[in-house]
């Protein structure tokens, strides 16, 4: 199972993912700059990613608390919190990039 992380210049990197892991944890495990101050409790909003539009329909819709966190973190049309995306076989190949606002938070 894999996710494809696209950087701000469009360069792709394939990350090995495991079922049941949060996408945030996978990205962080690889050492990419993503802060998750709250540890994945959908409480800080700092792990924002932008999901490839072709994949958004395959994701469960965000819960109210995730939408709220996206409000507070300048979420865009394709934004999700990576701590709220849990890997399943259906998401094998998921394409996303770390949101600019999350990189700014980590800087």
């Amino acid at each position: 199972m894999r996710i494809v992380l696209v950087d701000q210049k469009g360069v792709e990197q394939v990350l090995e993912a495991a079922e049941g892991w949060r996408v945030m944890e996978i990205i962080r495990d690889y050492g990419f700059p993503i802060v998750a101050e709250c540890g994945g409790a959908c409480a800080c909003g700092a792990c924002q990613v932008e999901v490839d539009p072709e994949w958004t329909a395959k994701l469960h819709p965000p819960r109210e608390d995730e939408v709220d966190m996206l409000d507070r973190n300048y979420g865009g049309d394709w934004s999700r919190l990576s701590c709220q995306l849990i890997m399943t076989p259906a998401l094998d190949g998921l394409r996303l990039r770390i949101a600019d606002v999350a990189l700014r938070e980590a800087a």
Partner: protein
Amino acid sequence: MTQETISTDVVIIGAGPCGLFAVFELGLLDMKCHLIDILDRSGGQCAELYPEKPIYDIPGLPVVSGQELTDRLMEQAAPFKPEFHYNEMVEELEKLPDGRWRVKTDGGLVFEAKVIVIAAGGGSFQPKKPPIPGIEAYEGKSVFYAVKRMETFRGKNILISGGGDSALDWTINLQPVAASMQLIHRRDGFRAAPDSVKKMHALVDEKKMQFHLGQITALHGDNGQLEGVTVKGNDGNDFQLECDTLLPFFGLTMKLGPIANWGLNLHENLIPVDTEKFQTNVPGIFAIGDINTYPGKLKLILSGFHEAALMSQAAFRHANPDAKLTFQYTTSSTSLQKKLGVA
């Protein structure tokens, strides 16, 4: 007005779970603590980020909410009469000739202490700034992240951005004093008291304010004085709004803040400590909880509790180099039980 200096054994920076448990461990060793926190209450992240979320990994408490854990820690620390100074950020830390430390806060409080314990978690909670290019130039002049005095905003053409309680409350409270009031939010749904949302919609219906959907993408003005903003509407099209004051309310984030200026070694915004004393590179300054780092560090509340216990032993020795320290158990020591008020 000059403040009286508060003299104490220990100043703990941060009143989160680790700071609170440090009061208990230091209290058993007769060390009196003052705690300083930038929030208006204790609990740190537990109270600010996830008061209602369940925590499952506190030993002996199979499930506990952030708020409940905070309440229980406050109860546990209470016999040692800790003193809390809320809404204060520690700005300066300097060493005195006698080896103690002088601590100054942004609110003008001054402390002198034998030992400093930094239990500041992710740092100071500070307002989250929207990622709008060049916003810094307007901050403090026409862009504000908090309302200290409503009078400051009398007669202004105000634009408030956000969809939580702060955004809604200030929209309603400032509308009567403002020359004009506009609210902008990325969706027509709010994370705020339903009554406030109703009041806001009523003001819109009465044409006393305007509500817009979208996100601010650019600011326009001169010398820090805002004249208007560009908004990306939810249909994808840009539009302009005129205003002379912008108040973004996007909640809080954690920043290391002034801690970076105290001469401590830092590693990726964390404070390296040893695992015997949890002392920083500066003797007498200790760091516990999420803010410290050492080989094998886990950012767990329970790790912070362990760190607090060991730190307290070392802090006692630092403050009382000639005193004998006998390790005792609360279950068997009547002197400890007297301190706890149970014997």
